[in-house]
């Protein structure tokens, strides 16, 4: 078994290394190809549009502000009052930054590229994974392992080569934020964590950039346009920033990621598309001279909620204006570019870090391998409670496991033994038969084990109750490699 594990480890390392090389090659190819591609397009137009060779001027001089191809490309939006030729020229002269090339960033970038913004920058330090593809539609199966930024730029390049694409192959940090964000007129927050959301908001306040922020989880989404108008710190007419709406970050333990909570592709897609829409409205209407400059039509900040499963899927809520004592955008704020860039603001610390659950003593836990031996042995196998949610359990489970979802245990209010009988503790099982608890990665199982003991299910030590260390993930690694892990 050990040699197999070693071999597997070696292979995994080799794959990782090869993927890295592949990624590097792709990047080189991408860099090599993009100027050629742009050149091709320009040449394709030179015969009919702006750049005329001297002496070739048999047709009258092109006197329109957009190139001929652009009139066909943008014609369907050009004729809308919301855009018009003025709006299209504004789009063409605007640089938009998308932070996060994931489920929100992919559709947002695609629509902004399609609409013809002048420059589209993308920031992300991650690589494309297979688990991204159901929602991050600009990536593709063949580009798994490639930098997300490069994959997204490649997709957008194919959609509209007229746009200047700027890949930033790194995560946004306090140190690089000013250098990156200052080159753009508008920012889209397409990230997935409070730390980046506070950082992006702060830099947008300091550099006076409007911010279109969206998020999604499971079947819900939220959208809010912040810092619009993007007035200076302390200016009363400025729109609220992320800190005005959420002055305190949520406790780290309450933050659920798409990886843990799941997310439906079209839900995050809808939110990303809406971000592109808000951006286009802002740009075409003229950033800075948006509705805010007209005293009759002040910008009323609003939060859009989307609930895919609700009878009213869209709901718009009136939000507060700037918070007079806001840490970032108020008159009294001490936040400066220098302070932010120095890294003295610790966003990770500010948002808190989750600590792994550690409520059981070592002797109250067993390893996956030990449990496998118990299953193979002659003594009573006892009961195995799988406390993952039903959806996880239905995908794959350990033979003989009984599904008792953690959420149901939590929801049950005061813990009672009664809840666990008779289905879970049938009379045919001796009172001293052990109970084992398994979850996804070994956190919830500890809490449940502790709870079962508090409920008195251990019969004052008569019955052994333990959890399986590392949960189903450990079971996959140590015992059954075929287990599909979610």
């Amino acid at each position, binding site marked *: 078994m050990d040699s197999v594990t070693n071999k597997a480890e070696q292979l995994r390392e080799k794959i990782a290394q090869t993927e890295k090389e592949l990624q590097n090659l792709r990047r080189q190819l991408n860099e090599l190809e993009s100027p050629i591609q742009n050149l091709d397009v320009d040449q394709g137009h030179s015969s009919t549009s702006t750049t005329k060779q001297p002496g070739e001027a048999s047709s009258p001089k092109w006197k329109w502000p957009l190139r001929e191809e652009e009139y066909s490309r943008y014609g369907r939006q050009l004729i809308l009052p919301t855009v018009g030729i003025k709006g299209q020229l504004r789009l063409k002269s605007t640089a938009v930054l998308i932070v996060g090339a994931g489920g*929100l960033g992919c559709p947002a970038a695609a629509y902004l590229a399609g609409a013809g913004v002048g420059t589209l920058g993308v920031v992300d330090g991650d690589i494309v994974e297979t688990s991204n593809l159901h929602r991050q539609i600009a990536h593709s199966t063949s580009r798994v392992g490639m930098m997300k930024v490069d994959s997204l730029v490649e997709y957008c390049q194919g959609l509209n080569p007229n746009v200047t694409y700027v890949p930033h192959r790194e995560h946004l940090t306090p140190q690089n934020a000013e250098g990156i964000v200052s080159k753009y007129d508008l920012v889209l927050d397409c990230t997935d964590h409070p730390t980046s959301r506070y950082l992006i908001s702060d830099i947008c306040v300091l550099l006076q950039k409007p911010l279109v922020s969206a998020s999604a989880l499971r079947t819900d989404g939220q959208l809010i346009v912040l810092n619009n108008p993007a007035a200076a710190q302390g200016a009363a007419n400025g729109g609220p920033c992320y800190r005005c709406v959420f002055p305190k970050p*949520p406790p780290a333990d309450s933050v659920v990621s798409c990886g843990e909570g799941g997310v439906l592709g079209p839900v995050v897609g809808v939110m990303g598309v809406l971000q592109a829409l808000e951006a286009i409205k802002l740009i075409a209407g003229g950033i800075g001279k948006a509705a805010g400059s007209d005293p009759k039509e002040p910008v009323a900040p609003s939060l859009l*909620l989307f609930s895919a499963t*609700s009878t009213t899927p869209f709901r718009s809520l009136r939000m507060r204006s700037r918070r007079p004592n806001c840490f970032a955008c108020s008159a009294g704020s001490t936040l400066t570019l220098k302070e932010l860039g120095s890294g003295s603001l610790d966003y990770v610390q500010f948002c808190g870090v989750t600590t792994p659950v550690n409520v059981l003593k070592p002797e109250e836990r067993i390893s996956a391998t030990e449990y496998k031996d118990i299953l193979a042995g002659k003594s009573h196998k006892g009961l195995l409670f799988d406390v993952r949610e039903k959806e996880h359990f239905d995908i794959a489970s350990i033979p003989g496991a009984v599904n008792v979802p953690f*959420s149901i245990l*939590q929801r049950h209010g005061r813990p009672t033994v009664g809840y666990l009988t008779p289905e879970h503790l049938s009379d045919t099982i001796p009172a001293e038969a052990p109970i084992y608890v398994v979850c996804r990665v070994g956190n919830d199982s500890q809490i449940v084990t502790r709870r079962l003991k508090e409920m008195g299910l251990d019969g004052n030590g008569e019955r052994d109750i333990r959890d399986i260390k590392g949960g189903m993930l450990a079971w996959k690694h140590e015992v059954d490699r075929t287990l599909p892990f979610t």
Partner: protein
Amino acid sequence: MSTIQAAEKPPEDIEIPKPELSIVVEFTGGLEMLFSDQRRHPLSIPVTNKEGNPLTIADLIEHLCNHTMKDTRKELFVLDDHLRPGILVLINDADWELEGEEAYEIQAGDNILFVSTLHGG
């Protein structure tokens, strides 16, 4: 008003039925999981709190914890006697900060929406 106050000060404040307000409380952004996976809760709540004052959002939050929430994870809703950071309250579709926050006095027919912020993307 006087009848309400009279009803509010019974000798023993249990047997006499108190006047109640009909409101709708909604949860979204994942908070519904703490409330029996149900987004919309039409509720009848007491007109006044323990002290006999008009019921505020703060009182409503306490009421929800004690009577509506079956989940044991109270800390995902309330932290240090206040709403947990990262939860927005909307009173009739407007940010509660436009309405006086925890001190807002609940009116019959109000729609109170609790939204947990999402971070995924």
